[in-house]
């Protein structure tokens, strides 16, 4: 049973097509990164899965049932972007309130607060919390009642690097227990090692989806070799130019090293030729990052879109 499944889902608001024929699914024990610039349709997709809105077209199924069914929402954890709570209540009171609403055991409340590192602050009013603390309380809230589908919208906003690493570790543990996790974000650095699959949305359409290796293949983006010469850079250039698939390779020098952009299919051949030539003292290989792939798929309009993405 899939955690959720969007089948040819479109959503129209007034006249604007906010989501256009999206097919996407999440299986248990999987972490999906849902990426896109502001207004790309990430939050709309999440709201459809949560049953807060109904699609104009297509089908949304969640945990084998219908989105928004109270019997199913019990098994969904959700952390909204910029999560807010009642400022006059303490962290413990808030979590207890939400635990009651979810039918979760109140014993979970101190446990979860400890897990997100709010032990010392649980009896302080939320109005005294920093943004990061509020975010951690939001995360504890999303984890109430052992969710089978966990959806986190910009979960790392306001978290320091250590807390972010803790969060990702926690998500891995949950995934290994069979929870399906959606990480919704427009901040990409750092998230790459923790997701199993990525889906890239732009202007309401799904541009690409898959694991990072297959996204790289789809994007056909070059790998960069950074080579330190044994003798001279010119000698290295000669080796590259004589390599079988050298046509169209981009080369430039920086800091006494030669950088070569090579297509994935020709990478190993060139590496072998370089090593065999004896002209290489050191070699670094840089695959396109998730961020590079993302920029590739959102296209040339990317910079304008990414303006709001910090």
């Amino acid at each position, binding site marked *: 049973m899939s955690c959720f499944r969007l089948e040819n889902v479109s959503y129209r608001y007034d006249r604007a097509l906010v989501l256009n024929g999206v097919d996407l699914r999440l299986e248990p024990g999987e972490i999906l990164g849902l990426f896109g610039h502001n207004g790309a349709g990430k939050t709309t997709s999440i709201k459809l899965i949560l049953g*807060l809105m109904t699609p104009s077209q297509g089908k949304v199924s969640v945990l084998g049932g219908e989105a928004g069914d109270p019997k199913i929402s019990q098994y969904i954890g959700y952390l909204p972007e910029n999560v*807010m709570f009642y*400022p*006059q209540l303490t962290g413990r009171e808030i979590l207890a309130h939400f635990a009651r*609403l979810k039918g979760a055991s109140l014993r979970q409340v101190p446990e979860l607060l400890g897990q997100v590192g709010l032990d010392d602050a649980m009896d302080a009013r939320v109005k005294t919390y920093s943004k990061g603390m509020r975010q951690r309380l939001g995360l504890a*809230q999303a984890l109430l009642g052992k969710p089978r589908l966990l959806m986190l919208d910009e979960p790392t906003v306001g978290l320091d690097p250590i807390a972010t690493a803790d969060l990702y570790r926690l998500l891995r543990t949950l995934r290994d227990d069979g929870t399906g996790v959606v990480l919704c974000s427009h901040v990409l650095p750092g998230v790459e090692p923790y997701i199993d699959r990525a889906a890239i949305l732009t202007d309401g359409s799904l541009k690409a989806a898959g694991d990072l290796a297959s996204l790289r293949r789809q994007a056909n983006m070059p790998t960069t070799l950074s080579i330190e010469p044994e003798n001279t850079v010119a000698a290295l250039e000669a080796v590259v130019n004589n390599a079988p698939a050298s046509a169209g390779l981009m080369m430039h020098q920086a800091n006494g090293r030669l950088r070569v952009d090579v297509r994935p299919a020709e990478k190993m051949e060139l590496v072998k030729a370089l090593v065999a030539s004896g002209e290489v003292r050191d070699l670094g290989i840089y695959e396109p990052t998730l961020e590079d792939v993302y920029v590739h798929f959102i296209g040339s309009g990317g910079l304008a879109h990414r303006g709001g993405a910090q």
Partner: protein
Amino acid sequence: MNSIWTIARKELSDSLRNRWLIAIALVFATLAVGIAWFGAAASGQVGYASTPATIASLASLGIFLIPLIALLLAYDAIVGEEEGGTLLLLMTYPLSRGQLLFGKFLGHGLTLALATLIGFGVAGVAIALLVEDVAVGALTVAMLRFIISTTLLGWSFIALAYVVSVRVSEKPIAAGLALAIWFFFVLVFDLLLLGTLVASQGEFNPELLPWLLLLNPTDIYRLLNIVTFSDSTQLSGVLSLGSDLPIGPSGLWLALILWFVIPLAGAWALFRGRRI
């Protein structure tokens, strides 16, 4: 039911925390005691006059105060959750919009009922203990009737506040509309009715006119608390129409109950259609 109670209990504990409940109860008790002892001061007499006179004075004050308190208590019920950013999160929980709204109503309604019961109850006990030869039986019945009708009046304005709260998207607008509701029912409505009465010079269907009083919960409340206790010849203004109403107290009670049931149902219907 559990979810409704969870929402209600938060509202109740909020009103205990911010001391709303105790403040309202205190205001009621002070006013009730003040009116009981000094209500007749204008006629040169200090001390307890009579139970009907006290209740009538309390009710006259109540029609100003109770709607205002109820509207203030409830106007931000939904729009406040939305502005505070918690509505979206709540709606992802196993909680329907109806359960949220009825939970809020239960919480706000209980707050007002408790404040009324404690405030006026304390005053009633004080009168029973301190005033010599007051008929305790009659006082108890009159006070209970007053407390219950005051609570119902409050509930109707809580429900009216919800209609506003589920409809607008900003708290200040909700507050403004809540004040407009107060202004209309407490001040304008009777003037309009009186104006109609005078302008029509009896031409207006005389059988229909008394029924128009039922369109205002504060008039129903006054009829319940003043007409039943006082000699109807003392009634002034539009209330004199009340003596022509062919329905008895039970009809008035029913009308007051409908005054919170119908707006609450309306608020629910509007809330279901709201985009979150």
